[in-house]
């Protein structure tokens, strides 16, 4: 029971309290770039959830079974994690291309972009820094990606409405997206202190 409670704590803390975008600022490029429309941000969220969870698993295996026993952890960690994620995104790309060509066409440009999304590499580093065990890493990876999806959908929903509203000339374009994120971030700050 205690272990389950611990897992729940990790999930809540990584998804809302330390929300990866609004509090920790990782993965902002796609957050600002892709939230122009609700549909593309939904597709991106699912892809990110999938890749983050699977690369959390792979990176944990490499970290704990190869790098730590061999004493290579600080020197080779960055290189091996980025290669894991890079090859993984490549695999996902090939799979989606085969399984559903339509989805592949719709996400074409954004799929390879996932490899350079700092959120996923960040999630593997967060797992490694907190010395999570195998299940904890999966839960934390899922929580982080879930937090990303929440933030994406919030901003995309607001920006869709914003299209028809009267924005001051100074803030037209990207600037207003940042201001809204600031306010959203203020709201998420309210969750801090929920877990000691």
């Amino acid at each position, binding site marked *: 029971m205690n272990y389950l409670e611990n897992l729940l704590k990790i999930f809540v803390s990584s998804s809302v309290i330390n929300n990866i975008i609004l509090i*920790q600022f990782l993965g902002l490029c796609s957050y600002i770039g892709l939230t122009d429309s609700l549909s593309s941000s939904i597709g991106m969220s699912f892809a990110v959830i999938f890749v983050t969870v699977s690369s959390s698993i792979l990176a944990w295996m490499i970290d704990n079974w190869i790098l730590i026993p061999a004493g290579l952890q600080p020197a*080779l960690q*960055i290189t091996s994690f*980025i290669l894991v994620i890079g090859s993984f995104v490549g695999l996902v790309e090939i799979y989606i291309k085969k399984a559903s060509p339509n989805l592949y066409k719709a996400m074409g440009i954004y799929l390879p972009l996932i490899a350079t999304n700092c959120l996923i590499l960040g999630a593997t580093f967060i797992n490694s820094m907190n010395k999570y065990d195998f299940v904890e890493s999966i839960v934390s990876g899922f929580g982080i990606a879930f937090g990303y999806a929440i933030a994406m959908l919030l901003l995309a929903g607001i920006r869709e409405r914003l299209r028809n509203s009267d924005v001051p*000339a100074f803030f037209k374009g*990207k*600037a207003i997206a940042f201001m809204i994120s*600031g306010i959203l971030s203020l709201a998420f*700050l309210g969750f801090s202190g929920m877990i000691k």
Partner: protein
Amino acid sequence: MNKLKIIWNAIIPNNPVLIISIGLCSVIAVSNSVQSALLMTFAFAMVQIPSNIIVSAMRKIIPHEIRVPIFVSVIAAFTTIAALLSQAYFNSVYQIIKLYILLVVVNCIIIGRAEAFAYQNGVFDSFLDGIGNTIGYGIVLVAIAIIRELIGKGTLAGIQIMPESYQPMLLMILPPAGFIMIGILVGALETYLKRKEGKK
């Protein structure tokens, strides 16, 4: 003149952070104190300049199909060097912003410059482009850090600047202010560039 233009382009008209809006994560996260901002700029320079040089020097022998994995491996090597160097010499600040220094490896500015500039231009030009992008990134980062730390804590790089009676505005060093500051700067620079365009 042409060489100076390479540097200038990266600082104002094509500022990587404010105009192209890439590499934002570390800018917003690290800009709540001047010390971390300076260390981050140092780490960024340690990766951006040498990786631009290496990619440009090897551009004729890198096959087009696998160029991205090669870029990433080069960048990862320099990121490891930068992380170990900052851990050795600036450990107290490094512990605070560790995650963001490790993540320089996926900083879109560095990968973007390797792809868009270093892969197509000579070694010396790429070196200048690296310097220009470092300045363009660093200026924004340090400027935001100065404003946020001064208002939020009343200090600069840990030294008390504001008088004792000053009540620090805590919000400025919390996450939301990072987004708001960037929003104001993006708005300001875009308005400035639009006006300049209008005059021509």
